[in-house]
Structures are given as structure tokens and as C-alpha cells.
């Protein structure tokens, strides 16, 4: 049995000849907010549907909360899910819709007012679902996922279609939920969202896993660079000689406008490296117009990973 909340080995989903999820080895530790990111059609939702027993696994195996994914009935009572989009009975109120969930799941209906309060829907709980805004529908979806007091929360693109205020509100809600205990598995194609909410990251592209680990870890292998430009573009050769003498690695290409790209050693402070170069270049009679520290972003790393995978 795995200590991970979600653990899969070679998880694969095929529709005929088309491979939608290709040998995915997931390993999501307990207590984290894990972001599953990837472009549209990468296989995020299909992966979640397999974990929730909605789609058959073509090959591979795995566990959710320590139970085999081949027997979803053994663990789904401890899982809350918002999959694809919120789906409720339009004629019933939010409260009645949650009562349906409680009844089918054998859940204590006294939890309903609590989860409605938690997602900020208590005031509109008795309105028909069809009268809800998109943001309220998403919130009711979260409430339905929470009503069973889950150990694992699976949220598929919970901010889809929301306005900026709604996205922010949903982000705060998800982060708050994670602080209360359950492990959260969240799919998104919004890197900003993932960076702000998640502490564990799984990157999927074309059904394949490109990265898995802490969010900070994805940036660990990336280099920080200094972009240096002299006052005159003709100074570039002298600046390069000075930097070479200092022993720093100069990127072969110029990024335009006379810029040099200097790789900052992984154990060095970029600001100190920049100051040293500035001092040395000044000693050679050259004035620098600009020194920028360029730290790698999650977006750049993501694009690098997904490009590699493609």
C-alpha cells in the first residue's frame, strides 16, 4: 500500500487507437494542493475521470487513498469531486441539490448548512439552481464536493469561466480548504493559479507526464541569467572579454540591442555577480546602461517542458 493519496503506475487510457493518457505515474503526497497542468486536450480531465471511476482504465494500476482504482466504490465515499463543470438539477434549490448528494452518499444532511456557509452560498441556498450565476454554480459544485467531509478533493478547472474577481475568490477558497486538511488535486491550464495555490505540480502534455514534484522544484534546474547592455552597442566585445576573464559563462547569442546573457552560477547571488561585472567593466572604461536579473518563470519552464514533450 502506498502512503501517497494518489499513486498510479503506467495509467493509460485509449479510445480505439488514440492514446489520451499515456503511462502516467502519479504520486501525490498527503496534505498538498496538487496542480495538474497541461494544455487543453492534454489528458487532465480524463485522468481525473479514471481516478473517480467514471472512465475505465485501459492499462496500468494505482491507488486512491490506499485503495485500488479498480474498485472506486471502496474509496469514493472519502472523495469529493467537481469534475468537468458543475452539474445539478436546475429546478431544485442549491440546498435540495445538496440533499440529493447527501441522500445518495449516505451523508449526514446536517452538514449541508455548514458547507453552504463555507462556500458563501447560505443566503441563496433556497434559490433554484437555474437562477445561479456561473460563480455561484461553481461554489455549489465545491459545496457538493465538501458535503461528504472528504479526505481528497478533486477539482477539475474550478475557475473555468469565472471573472477575475471570481477567480480570486475561488483561489482563496481552495487554498483555505486545503489548510483545513484534505489533499486537493486541482487541474488547470492557468499557471498563475497553480503557482499561487499549489505546492505540488504535475505537468501533463499529450497524455504524458513531463514533470512531477514540488512547484519550486520545477524551477530548480533552470538557470538565472543577467542581461547586460553597454552604453554603446560597440562596447559589446570589450564587455564580453571582461566577463570571460571573470570566469562567467556568456550565452553565445545576443538577445538584441547589444545585450549579453550571462549565466549566474547556481550557488551565486545574481546581485553580487552583477555588481562584480559592473565594477570590472567600469575599470575597463566602459559604462553599463543596464543589468537585469532574469529569473526563470513557471511559464517558461512549463513551455519548455511541454515543447519537449510535443
Amino acid at each position, binding site marked *: 500500500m502506498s502512503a501517497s493519496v494518489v499513486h498510479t503506475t503506467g495509467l493509460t487510457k485509449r479510445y480505439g487507437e488514440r492514446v489520451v493518457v499515456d503511462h502516467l505515474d502519479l504520486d501525490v503526497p498527503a496534505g498538498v494542493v496538487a496542480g495538474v497542468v497541461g494544455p487543453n486536450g492534454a489528458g487532465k480531465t480524463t485522468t481525473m*475521470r479514471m481516478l*473517480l*471511476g*467514471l*472512465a*475505465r482504465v485501459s492499462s496500468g494500476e494505482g491507488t486512491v487513498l490506499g485503495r485500488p482504482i479498480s474498485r*472506486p*466504490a471502496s474509496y*469514493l465515499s472519502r*472523495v469529493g*469531486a467537481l*469534475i*468537468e*463543470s458543475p*452539474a*445539478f*438539477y*436546475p*429546478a*431544485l434549490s442549491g440546498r*435540495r441539490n445538496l*440533499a*440529493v*448528494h447527501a*441522500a*445518495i*452518499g*449516505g451523508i449526514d444532511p446536517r452538514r449541508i448548512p455548514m458547507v453552504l456557509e463555507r462556500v458563501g452560498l447560505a443566503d441563496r441556498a433556497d434559490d433554484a439552481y437555474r437562477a445561479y450565476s456561473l460563480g455561484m454554480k461553481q461554489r455549489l459544485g465545491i459545496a*457538493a464536493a465538501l458535503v*461528504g467531509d472528504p479526505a481528497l478533493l478533486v477539482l477539475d478547472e474550478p475557475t473555468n469561466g469565472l471573472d477575475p474577481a471570481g477567480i480570486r475568490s475561488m483561489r482563496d477558497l481552495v487554498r483555505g480548504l486545503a489548510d483545513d486538511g484534505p489533499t486537493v488535486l486541482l487541474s488547470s491550464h492557468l499557471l498563475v493559479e497553480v503557482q499561487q495555490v499549489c505546492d505540488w505540480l504535475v505537468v501533463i502534455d499529450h497524455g504524458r507526464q513531463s514533470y512531477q514534484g514540488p512547484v519550486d522544484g520545477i524551477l530548480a534546474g533552470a538557470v538565472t541569467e543577467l542581461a547586460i547592455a553597454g552604453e554603446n552597442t560597440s562596447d559589446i566585445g570589450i564587455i564580453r572579454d571582461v566577463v570571460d576573464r571573470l570566469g562567467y559563462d556568456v550565452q553565445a547569442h545576443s538577445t538584441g540591442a547589444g545585450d549579453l546573457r550571462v549565466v549566474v552560477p547556481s550557488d551565486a547571488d545574481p546581485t553580487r555577480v552583477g555588481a562584480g561585472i559592473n565594477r570590472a567593466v567600469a575599470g575597463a572604461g566602459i559604462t553599463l546602461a543596464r543589468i537585469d536579473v532574469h529569473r526563470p518563470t513557471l511559464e517558461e519552464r512549463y513551455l519548455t517542458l511541454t515543447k519537449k514533450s510535443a
Partner: protein
Amino acid sequence: MVGSFRAELVKIRRPATGYGALAMMAFAALATVLTFVAAKTGPARVSVKDPGGNIVTTLSQLGSAAGISRGYNVASGLIGLVVFVLFVTAITGEYAQGTMRVMLTREPRRARYLTGRLAALLLLVAVVLLAALVASIGAALISAQVRGVPTGQWFTSAGFGHVAGDYLNSVVTAACFGALGTALGLAVRSTPLALGVGLAWLLPIEHILQTSWSAAPQWLPGLLSDAVAVGGSVGVSYLHAVVAAVGYAFVAAVLGVAVFMRRDAST
């Protein structure tokens, strides 16, 4: 199964269900009144035909023990279609709304989920049919006064036996059409397609086949289920109709569950 049964009851408990039940009661009462209005004078045990050759109910038949639920019996002929539409839309509506996948994350044991839901729907239908029967009997009592039909034999053990038999037949018919509607809904998942195919088969196609194939009432599921509702019909005995209709319903239910369990739960 208990969970999905209770969940279905939560969904059912709303004004629209009450309006539907009232409509069924009104329909049964109307059918009963029209049966009394259209009744001709004639013997109780011999079929009387109108100028068009159709068998008509006689006032003597209405005054027999079977007369108490004669109007309900006539109305039962259409119950099958109503139940068919109800069960088809109950399944395909879940796919259209996306609620099927949500419910299956709560109750992943699909056979249990389906059984619980259908049991709740069938209970609803049975209760509505009972209400329709009561409405029909009420309308029959009033209509009997107006047409001068004696009701002395209605409230005898034979009369109550007819009431129970007609009610049971309508429930069996509902179950058969419900199973057919559910299986079709699970197979095609689309409301327009399921209703289009189902109603086209049950209404024109079976009846066209009936005109050219004399054995059609003994073999076609819609005609067989209709025959159960009215306690047997011309060309098919009651026992044959029950056995064959229940057989079709059983096969449809098994195929429906098999399809439901094997397929991915997509929208």
C-alpha cells in the same frame, strides 16, 4: 441502492411532480366520463360494435362488477406511452445535465444506482396510478348517476377484484414500458433520439406491422404491454401478454444494465 432510491425521492418531491399527478388523475377521470358518455345500450356479455366496426362499451357492461374500473381500464391503454417518455427522459436528462457523472461519483456501484432510481420512479408511478384510479372511480360514480347505471355490483368482492386486477395490470404495464424506456435511454443517451426512435416504434411502426401481420400483437413489445394493461386483447391472451411483455422488459433491463456498467460515464 437505498441511497439512490432516497436521492430520487428528494428529487421527486417538488411541485412539478404534483402537477403531473394531477394531470394523470384528470386524464383518468376524463377517460371514465367519456366511456360513460359513449356507452351504448346492449347486453353485458356480448360485444357491441359501432357503425365503424369498433367495439363499444355498453351500459350493461358498466353496470357489471367490472364497470367500476372500466374507465380506468380504458385510460390504461395510454399509460404505457406516458411512462415510457418519463423513464426515457429520466435517464437521458441525467446525461444532458451532466448529473449522471456526478451521481456516479457518489454511488459508483452502477447496478445499485440504477435499481434504486428505477424503484423510486416505479413507486412514484404506482402512487400516481393509484390516485388516477381513485379519480376514475369518483368520476364513474358521478357518471353512473347521470347515465342511470346501477352500481350495486361494483362494491362486491368481484368488483374489488376487478379494481385490484386493473390496477395491477397498469402497474405491470408501467414497469414494462419503464424498462424499455430505461434501456433505450441508456443505449442512446440523447433525449430527442431516444424519444424519436422509441415513439416511432411504439406508435406508427408497431401499428403498421399489426395491419399486415396478424401475429404482431403476440410478438411486438408495445402491443404486448398494451394488452397487459387492458387485461388481454383480440388475438393475444392475457397470460401470453404478461409472460411475453415481462420477458421483453427483463431482457431490456439486463441489456440496459450491461451497457450502463461497461461504458464510460461521459456527458
